[in-house]
């Protein structure tokens, strides 16, 4: 026993002090396990070899990055050289001066990058971020089950509701998944639906919002009970385990559900329209360099590498991510082609979310309105008016 303790301490210290011999590039991303695997095995090694560095990858959720960056920048100990961040969480970083101004790098962006994506990286005319991964939700459905009940994939809300009713009647439990876990996934989902009902989501209580929530209230009893835990990652599992037969999710699920889990009966299409139009939020991630990063040059070099055609092609064919480049779809394997048709179909109806300073508050209030109205059955108009006022108060604060 007596010998054991010093040994243990020694071991711990060795582990902690075995520092890097090679220069390191510390990269923060928020990815799933399958995605990390591709990054570590396919994307990082060529760059590490070419630049003679070691990439240290750090997993962090989009919502946590601002806190960490703020702590590091204020303390003058920046331990992140490059980060990928959700394109809806950018204002705070830009306003608080936590990131490097990359305006002089704009000319380095390859020509084939879709211009709208570059515009979304600019704040007050300055380029703070670099495009690297656009994203749009497609709709997944279980072909076998739809055929079994003689259903077509829904084209609009009415067909969605009737499909939901059929599944519930036949299987006794709802089989259509709505991402209702809360947070950004639910807010994004609601944003998309409200726009397709002709509303402005940020108002929370205009006619389009009321229409959306009224419909959701009607739809809720027929949805899969797992909806309450569904977000972008868990949803894939629910579809793979037959606990849901239809869902909207980002395209990375194609690789996981169809290839990794071997669920060949899953198909995708661009999605259904709302009462006014079809709309799909363009999400995705951009790259940024924290202010005071000691490896800025290396980070910029890595950004250019990530934007290059060969890397984008790998991301497309290995991960099923849509690309920032219009010329990166050449190497897509055959089985994935129909899914990229779904992606491009959805992108045709793409809408960008407004980058507002009160986005976090919006996420909070729209989620609470959702829980109260949809899962607890509160009156639509009165509840939405209440949260509209809350958001107005928050706007004045920021």
């Amino acid at each position, binding site marked *: 026993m007596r010998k054991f303790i010093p040994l243990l301490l020694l071991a711990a210290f060795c582990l902690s002090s075995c520092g890097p011999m090679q220069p390191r590039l510390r990269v923060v991303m928020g990815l799933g396990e399958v995605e990390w695997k591709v990054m570590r095995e396919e994307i990082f090694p060529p760059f590490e070899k070419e630049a003679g560095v070691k990439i240290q990858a750090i997993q962090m959720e989009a*919502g*946590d990055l601002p806190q960490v960056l703020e702590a590091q920048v204020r303390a003058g100990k920046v331990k992140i050289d490059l980060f990928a961040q959700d394109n809806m969480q950018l204002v705070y970083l830009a306003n608080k001066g936590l990131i490097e101004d990359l305006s002089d790098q704009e000319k380095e962006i390859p020509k084939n990058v879709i211009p709208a994506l570059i515009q979304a990286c600019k704040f007050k005319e300055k380029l703070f971020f670099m495009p690297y991964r656009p994203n749009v939700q497609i709709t997944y459905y279980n072909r076998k089950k739809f055929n079994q009940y003689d259903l077509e994939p829904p084209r609009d809300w009415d067909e969605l509701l009737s499909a939901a009713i059929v599944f519930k009647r036949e299987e*006794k*439990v709802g089989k259509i998944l709505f991402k209702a*876990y*809360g*947070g950004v996934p639910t807010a994004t989902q609601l944003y998309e639906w409200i726009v397709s009902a002709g509303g402005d989501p940020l108002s929370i209580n205009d006619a389009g919002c009321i229409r959306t929530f009224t419909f959701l209230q009607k739809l809720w009893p027929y949805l899969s*009970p*797992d909806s*309450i*835990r569904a977000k972008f990652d868990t949803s894939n599992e629910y579809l793979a*385990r*037959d*606990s849901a037969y239809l869902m909207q999710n980002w395209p990375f699920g194609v690789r996981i559900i169809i290839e990794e889990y071997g669920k060949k009966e899953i198909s995708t299409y661009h999605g259904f329209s709302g009462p006014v139009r079809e709309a799909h939020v363009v999400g995705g991630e951009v790259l940024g360099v924290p202010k005071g990063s000691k490896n800025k040059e290396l980070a910029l070099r890595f950004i250019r590498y990530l934007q290059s055609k060969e890397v984008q092609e790998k991301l497309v064919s290995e991960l099923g991510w849509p690309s920032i480049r219009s010329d990166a779809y050449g190497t897509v394997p055959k089985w994935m082609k129909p899914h990229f048709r779904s992606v491009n179909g959805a992108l045709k109806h793409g809408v960008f979310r407004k980058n507002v300073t009160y986005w*976090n*508050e919006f*996420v*909070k209030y729209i989620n*609470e309105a959702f*829980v*109260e109205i949809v*899962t*607890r059955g509160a009156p639509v108009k009165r509840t939405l008016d209440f949260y509209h006022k809350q958001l107005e*108060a*928050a706007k*004045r*604060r920021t």
Partner: protein
Amino acid sequence: MMRKYFTEVLLLMPLLLYLLGFTLVPMAYATILAFTNYLNGTFPSLASFSYIFSHFQFKEAVFNTLFITLVGLTLELLLGLGLALLLLERFRGRRFFRALMLLPLGIPTIVVASNMRYLFDTNGFLNEILYRLGIIEIPLNWMGGGLHTLFSLVIADMWKVTPLVMLILLAGLESISREVLEAAEIDGASYLKRLRFILLPLLKPFITMALIIRGIDAFRIFELPLALTGRTVRVLATYSFFEYREFGNPNTSAASAAILMVMILIAIAVYMKVIKQREISL
């Protein structure tokens, strides 16, 4: 006195200062945060409190916390007592059984949460067992909200902490002399009567101790609801966590933590009173 123990006081100071500094200063700061207006940052203000009190999810969190504490404590005590009584019997394999009952103490709480997730998932193992036994046809939604979700949380918590209750009660039972029990047995009193009139009264101080120690822990329950039900079913601690981490609102977070703190202070006050009355050593 002061002079005689001068060295001791000096040696004790770093420990006490660390504990005091790291509890009182943060608590003072948390209190300031709680009384700061969450909208415009003015202090003092009751705005953060009036916000959480008007918030339906906060009310649910208070209810859930109280429910888990009350129901959980009752069940844990009953089960712990039952197990302790089982272990009081002399049977073959008693030592092995006792060791087995200690297993949950060796499982970190977050691991318990992970394990319970497999059990209570919609396509999880509890539903599968019930399905195979022919009890249910449609999978039940254990973690979706409502009373059965609270019961599932209670069960998960019970799994982890009942051994602790059992150990406390077993220590109590073993301190009762065998002669008393045997005398009652010879008198022909039935098992239940012996339990009701002899064991339980003698066990009372230990039951009180288990109740209070577990009660305070139950108020603070955090990891299990966070990992198992997340935002769907919140308790006070996870409500406070979400207000801060998900919505970036330290003021309402601190306000709800303050309410939890008050609930625990009341429990501690009761505890101190009981200690004084009964002279139970820690």
